[in-house]
């Protein structure tokens, strides 16, 4: 009995050691002095291996990436730790959260090389240069082409269309309190109809049978009839609040690739989001951080972004892949809103929206 129990104890200890040593090998190590630059970002951060390797080779810095949850969490955590930050550069604060980051002193000034190449409409904080615009994307209603051709119905193109009886019970959107596209769509309607009238619009939308689910995953993969998941789940909503880059993704992530996207974008329903990066206050490696910010604005990185993060470049003359041009063109006149205005109204709007639409 004692022999077997000893053997058993050995197995347990052994398993533990295997686990510890195995995990040890994936430890990227902390510190690293001035030769390591640490990027703190959200879960969607992605870059091609060879593009990052080229930066490391050319600059001499090793890049360590920390992913810190979704966009909102990553910003909040960065603010919580701003006196002793986890890294040198933060990427991924968008215009809906920019004021929160700036007001809390998250970033220090640095005008990245290549800032003069950024398209003028994306530039912000021009006097202090605390953040650098990196990418942009539109939140828009997507439609299921098959549904509309089968029912011989023209897909909607504008916010006004969505409240028409022809589109009754067709739209699914996300909870503005918990979902980034849900919030973007709400902000789009607030930008379009103004402080006084957006609630009326939502009353009409509610009367026209809009369905609200908690997150993008449920809306797109469960309720939207144009997605792979939706088809399997026999989804019955041919309109969904998603991104302008979703139709290109439907082409790129298909095997074999279809000639045309199964979904389209209602171009008059778009709200534009821009994502920024900045040098963190109290960063340990400011020199490396600056070099990394410069890298984010290089043509090579800007052109690498679309297929990695499904966003559009902000740099003049940066090319986007063919699928983006064909199936997910950027809206001509998207709704936008100044970060201060969002900061001032956001919580109140979400609160009124919640009691208006969900209750």
């Amino acid at each position: 009995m004692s022999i077997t129990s000893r053997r058993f104890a050995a197995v347990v200890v052994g398993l533990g050691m295997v686990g510890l040593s195995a995990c040890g090998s994936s430890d990227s190590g902390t510190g690293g002095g001035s030769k390591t630059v640490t990027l703190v970002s959200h879960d969607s951060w992605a870059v091609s291996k060879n593009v990052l390797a080229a930066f490391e080779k050319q600059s001499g810095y090793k890049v360590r990436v920390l992913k810190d949850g979704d966009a909102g969490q990553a910003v909040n955590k960065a603010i919580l730790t701003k006196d002793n930050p986890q890294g040198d550069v933060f990427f991924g604060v968008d215009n809906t959260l920019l004021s929160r980051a700036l007001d809390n002193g998250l970033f220090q000034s640095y005008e990245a090389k290549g800032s003069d190449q950024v398209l003028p409409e994306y530039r912000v904080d021009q006097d202090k240069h605390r953040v650098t615009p990196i990418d942009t994307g539109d939140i828009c209603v997507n439609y299921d082409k098959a549904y509309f051709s089968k029912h011989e119905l023209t897909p909607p193109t504008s916010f006004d269309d969505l409240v028409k009886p022809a589109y009754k019970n067709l739209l699914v959107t996300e909870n503005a309190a918990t979902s980034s596209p849900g919030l973007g769509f709400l902000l789009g309607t607030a930008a379009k109809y103004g402080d006084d009238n957006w609630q009326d619009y939502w009353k009409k939308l509610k009367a026209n049978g809009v369905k609200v689910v908690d997150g993008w995953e449920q809306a797109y993969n469960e309720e939207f009839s144009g997605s792979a998941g939706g088809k399997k789940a026999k989804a019955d909503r041919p309109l969904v609040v998603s991104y302008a880059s979703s139709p290109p993704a439907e082409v790129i992530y298909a095997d074999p690739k279809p000639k045309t996207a199964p979904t389209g974008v209602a171009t008059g329903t778009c709200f534009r989001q821009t994502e920024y990066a900045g040098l963190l206050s109290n960063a340990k490696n400011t020199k490396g951080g600056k070099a990394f910010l410069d890298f984010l604005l290089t043509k090579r990185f800007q052109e690498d972004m679309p297929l990695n993060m499904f966003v559009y470049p902000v740099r003049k003359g940066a090319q986007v892949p063919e699928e983006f041009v064909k199936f997910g063109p950027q809206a001509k006149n998207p709704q936008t809103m100044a970060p201060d205005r969002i900061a001032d109204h956001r919580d109140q709007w979400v609160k009124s929206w919640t009691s208006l639409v969900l209750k």
Partner: protein
Amino acid sequence: MDLTRTEVAPRQGRRSRRSAAARLGLVAVPVAFFAVFFAYPVAAIVARGLKVDGRWQFGRIVDVVAQPDIRHVLWFTTWQAFASTALTLLVALPGAYVFARFAFPGKQVLRAVVTVPFVLPTVVVGTAFLALVGRGGLLDELWGVRLDTTVWAILLAHVFFNYAVVVRTVGGLWSQLDPRQEEAARMLGASRLAAWRQVTLPALAPAVAAAALMVFLFTFTSFGVVQILGGPAFSTLEVEIYRQTSEIFDLSTAAVLTIVQFVAVGAVLALHAWTVRRRETALRLVDASATARRPRGAGQWALLAGVLASIAVLLLLPLAVLVQRSLDAPDFGYYRALTSEDGGIFLVPPIEAIGNSLQYAVAATAIAVVIGGLAAAALTRRDAGRFVRGFDALLMLPLGVSAVTVGFGFLIALDEPPLDLRASWILVPLAQALVGVPFVVRTMLPVLRAVDVRLREAAAVLGASPWRVWREVDLPMVRRALLVAAGFAFAVSLGEFGATVFIARPDNPTLPVAVARLLGRAGELNYGQAMALSTILMIVCAVALLVLERLRTDRTGEF
């Protein structure tokens, strides 16, 4: 029994002082673990929310709790947790009986399979569960009933998730109860019901209560299920804490809600300790394989069939939907896609997430078994002081605290050397072990307490050291419980999603994280890969649990 006690009393005096010291040593490790990795981070984040310019703002508590919205959330959280626990016990206790007492082909595989839902990420299972209760689901096809966005979907999903908790916790002990005791009672003239009520039920009560407690804690802090199946109209405290911390960044409201949840969970734990702890008694445990036999008579066969049918509908059907959707491409296309470095959601092929998950899970299991095992050993003695018994309840608290609170707490608490662990890989298994330890303790404690104290005393009288007593007396008897506990800790760690996403980490995603990331992007291949990876997660988990069961059966007959 009293006679035995007086006989050994003289030696006992010296010995008990030594064993008290040993027990203090045993307690010190888990206490330090929970102080550093749980109490301190949570206290730090609550203090950040409630302390303005160095002064505590306790008035906020009254303000927040007075809001009608918050009161509504609190009420819903509580009643759905009670209802879910009752429903789970109702459905799963017959299952526990069947698994404990009947021998039937495929039993081991089935026991592993029913544990699978428990470890799957809710975002995936929520999806699969809609195939049962949602549009075009089984209920819709048969009777035109749709339960999604109703509270029934939430309750049923809670049964689905927690079925294994009851089957494993209660069934584990049930299978080791000597059926001859009940038979003896019947021979002496007791009716079947009376024999069960007076012999089996009292022996089983602590395990049932432990299972109920865990199910209650899980459903009280339910997050994904409520969001996905209930829709935005339903909100638990956990959802609200997440929203306040992660979206609105109102740390003071989040801190108040954390305290409210903490108090509620603490009250439940205290109630549990008060009603149940005193009833735990030494039991005569026998080898599990000796107690199970083929069902006899129409009644037993009907029971077996009923349990199997409920498992098929409630547990297997949603899982089968996942598997079917993962295979919905020619030549295993979704599985093949997992091995390629495509468009860059990951820097590595998604398939490598399996390796990451296994490494984390092994480390987390080792931590949980060591910490939980030490704690359980220290808590075994019923003459343990009040301090030690209070510690028992404290060990369960991590189940009652939101993962987002712990994750944010880690961030601001563990940021100075020597404990600057914020970017270290170890943080992930540590956070997972926090959830695993309560399982280890809860699974081991009833069995450890059931070990007859006289066996230990006899060994001590014969000159064995406390370590030797534990090794020669306790360990052989609790090995099964230890393996069940390790299996739970492993499974919990494999499926753990909450703390893992709230901790900053280098780009080596675990399986649940990878699944969530794939589901977060448009495109058929991404969806298909998410289903394929979920299927793999299911298989990895089922195999791990089966291996553990195999380990156990190799050694049966020893006690």
